[in-house]
């Protein structure tokens, strides 16, 4: 008899308030293969993963592990069945104030049979052994919150392995990782595959899917519409995802002449994060900013927006010095920031979608300080339409899929009249179709405002930006016009220390 697959889903489905968001999904994963799952925003990927990891108490259909039915109605049930996941928001499964060691053996600590009396040395020795399985080299006594995103991911992987996980799910693990980090993660994933784990990998970056997967599954509107047994082309995947051939994503042939200079940043300093960054940005051009995670892109944008204190430096707008101490000042001056961390910094999770959209420029929908409900609804409906926000748009924004939440975070700023638009990883978690839409939108906004487009996805920056800055360790280490530089050079600059002298 043939060996049963590691995990098999049979007719799995899920409804919310009577609406089916997942219907009759069946597939399996065998030991030693990486299966990718893709689909447009709201297709149901995260819901499927949540079912597999025991997040929901009830769902339809069956899941078999090694041929026997598994009961995945709680996270511990799923872990006991050998399924674990690395979520995009890794922070949600790490206890920030506990040490790395304690986090590594968190599940064991939670086990009622674990000895009540804790010995720090023993915990750390145990944890160190676990960390070694994925080559995580950090001080075991550090609080976990001090780790980098990448180290946190490794921590979660190691912890899952220690629990004898056999199926490991990655939900958009690379959404804010840059190239070298992605490669390191892929090396880890391949290693896991070679150890016989089954991997389910979710990402909106199609090039990654092609690089890592053995098979590709495509979800559309909650249904499994296609299953590629060998690796298809990016175009095939996109066609299956969207139900139609994707819009051409060739770099837009804009031969832009930059307009008047809008923003001048002079010697911007943020203690420990940004060191003497100066540049100018003009209307009509998109200024890309790229670099590894932690290079200071986010910190630079936040400083320009007044979200973090500058320790030195000035900001000029249309040649005039402006005093930006707080975000309120920035917004008054037409400087808008679309932040990187959407859940923490961008959304009122318990507010409905329309209230999130209207939140920044609420005065536009008010008469004498009283909200005109009809005009607010109308404005929101237009933005929902314009950005193709889909799913449960009537409910709280928390119920939208990740990519659709991201569109809300962007959309709430589009009611304003920007002079400077600071975009931080604005396409993270957004599907290929809408991504093109956002690029078009950014291009359109650049006619009216100076646009700073920060992204750790080098290809995206290369194809969109008219000019680009490369950052490393809080400094600008390279500045190029479109076409002046290639991917490789940027990568070296972003990571390499020797090239610094050249600039």
């Amino acid at each position, binding site marked *: 008899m043939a060996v049963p697959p590691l995990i098999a889903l049979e007719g799995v489905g899920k409804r919310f308030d009577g609406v089916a968001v997942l219907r009759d999904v069946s597939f399996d994963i065998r030991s030693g293969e990486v299966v990718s799952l893709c689909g447009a925003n709201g297709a149901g990927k995260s819901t499927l993963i949540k079912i597999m990891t025991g997040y929901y108490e*009830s769902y*339809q259909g069956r899941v078999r592990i090694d041929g026997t039915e598994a009961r995945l109605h709680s996270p511990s049930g799923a872990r006991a069945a050998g399924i674990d996941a690395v979520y995009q928001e890794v922070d949600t499964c790490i206890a920030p104030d506990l040490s790395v060691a304690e986090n590594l053996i968190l599940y064991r600590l939670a086990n009622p049979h674990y000895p009540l009396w804790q010995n720090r040395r023993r915990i750390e020795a145990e944890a160190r052994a676990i960390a070694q399985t994925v080559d995580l080299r950090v001080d075991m006594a550090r609080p976990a919150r001090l780790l980098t995103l990448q180290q946190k991911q490794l921590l979660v992987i190691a912890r899952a392995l220690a629990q004898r996980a056999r199926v490991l799910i990655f939900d958009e693990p690379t959404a804010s990782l840059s190239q070298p980090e992605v490669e390191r993660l892929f090396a880890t994933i391949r290693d896991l595959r070679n150890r016989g784990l089954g991997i389910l990998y979710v990402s909106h970056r199609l090039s990654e899917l092609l690089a890592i997967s053995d098979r590709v599954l495509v979800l559309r509107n909650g249904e499994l519409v296609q299953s590629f047994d060998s690796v298809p082309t990016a175009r095939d995947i996109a066609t299956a995802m969207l139900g139609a051939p994707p819009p051409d994503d060739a770099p837009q042939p804009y031969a832009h002449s930059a307009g008047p200079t809008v923003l001048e940043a002079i010697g911007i300093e943020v203690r420990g994060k940004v060191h003497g960054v100066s540049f100018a940005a003009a209307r009509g051009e998109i200024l890309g900013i790229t670099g590894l995670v932690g290079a200071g892109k986010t910190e630079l944008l936040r400083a320009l927006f007044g979200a973090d204190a500058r320790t030195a430096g000035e900001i000029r707008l249309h040649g005039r010095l402006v005093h930006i101490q707080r*975000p309120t000042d920035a917004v008054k001056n037409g400087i808008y920031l679309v932040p990187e961390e959407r859940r923490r910094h*961008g959304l*009122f999770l*318990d507010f409905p979608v329309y209230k999130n959209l209207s939140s920044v420029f609420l005065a536009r929908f008010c008469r004498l*300080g009283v*909200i005109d409900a009809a005009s607010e609804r109308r404005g929101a409906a237009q933005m929902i339409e314009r950005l193709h926000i889909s799913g449960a748009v009537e409910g709280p924004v928390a119920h939208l899929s990740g990519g659709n939440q991201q569109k809300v975070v962007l959309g709430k700023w589009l009611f304003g009249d920007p002079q400077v638009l600071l975009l931080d990883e604005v396409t993270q978690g957004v599907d290929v179709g809408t991504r093109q839409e956002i690029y078009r939108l950014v291009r359109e906004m650049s006619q009216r405002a100076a646009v700073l487009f920060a992204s750790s996805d080098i290809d995206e920056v290369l194809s969109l930006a008219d000019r680009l800055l490369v950052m490393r360790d809080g400094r600008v280490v390279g500045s190029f016009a479109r076409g002046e530089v290639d991917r490789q050079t940027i990568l070296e600059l972003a990571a390499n220390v020797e090239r610094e002298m050249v600039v």
Partner: protein
Amino acid sequence: MTPSQRPAQETHVRATRDWAPALQGLFLRWGILAVLFGLIVYLSMVQPQFLTITNWTNLIRDMSVETLVALAVTVSVVVAGFDVSVGAVAGMAVIVSMMAMVVYHASAAEAVGLSLLSGLVIGAVNAFLIVRLRLPDLLATLGMLFVVDGVQQVFVAGQTITPGMTLPNGSSATGTIQPSFLAIDQGRFLHLPISIWIMFAVAMLLWFFLSSTRVGRLMYAVGSNQEAARLSGVNVGAYKTGAYLLSGFLAALGGVVLAARIGVGEQLAGDPYMLNGVAASMIGFAVLGSGRANVFGTFIGALLMAVMVNGFTMLNVPYYTQQAMLGAVMLAALALSYAVKSRG
């Protein structure tokens, strides 16, 4: 699992899918109102005097102080704060208004004005502690509770403020309590006690303010995610300050009504209202499944408690049993509102 077990499980899954969540949703939405309605029906049946105009006029008049104090708590909770100094503020307003009239010959209007001002001042200090010094809301207002209670005791030096009372310098107070002041609770307008009108007017205004104005919406935004609000250009500190000022004002207004009701300056008269106010505000979370602080819910919470106290007193339920029952209702309401939050 044997094949014979499977159909059973499938029916179970289907059952939870179709009607259980709907029923659960219905319960979460209407639970509190159903309890209130059931209680009223029950009391009407066992106590003929319960459902009379006189009794309900008294009941609603009795709840006016609680409601005002509860609304004060609600406003602070909207910005994700927590004002537990409201009872002390109400008590302070009692002392201030009585002292103003009895000792300093103030008119009724002056007495009211000074009381409300004292509420605003305490609200401002709360806001300073929380926004500027960044103390946690609960600790700051708890500290203020003690300070304000202490100040009251210093003011009255262990006495009750009444006309003719002996002052610390040996002379006796010559002012009187203005009848127009007492009329705030004891007078009537269109057959109803004025305090009822005050309560309804304030509740309606506040409801409109919080649900339909820009400032009200942004207060909720600050409460929902302070950092996201800040990064949306909202001056978070100003909104929190505004909320605590409003909270102090509403609590002091409750104190004014209370002073007009008791007619003497008793120290610490407001303290018992704090817990009831917090309870009403929290019960309000669960009304109509809103899951957040809101004016209508707070009003229903206060009404539910007033009906319980009124009815149980009629039924001669001992005071301490009433307390236990109130507590149980509040816990049930909280359970409901957290169920709303964690659904999905």
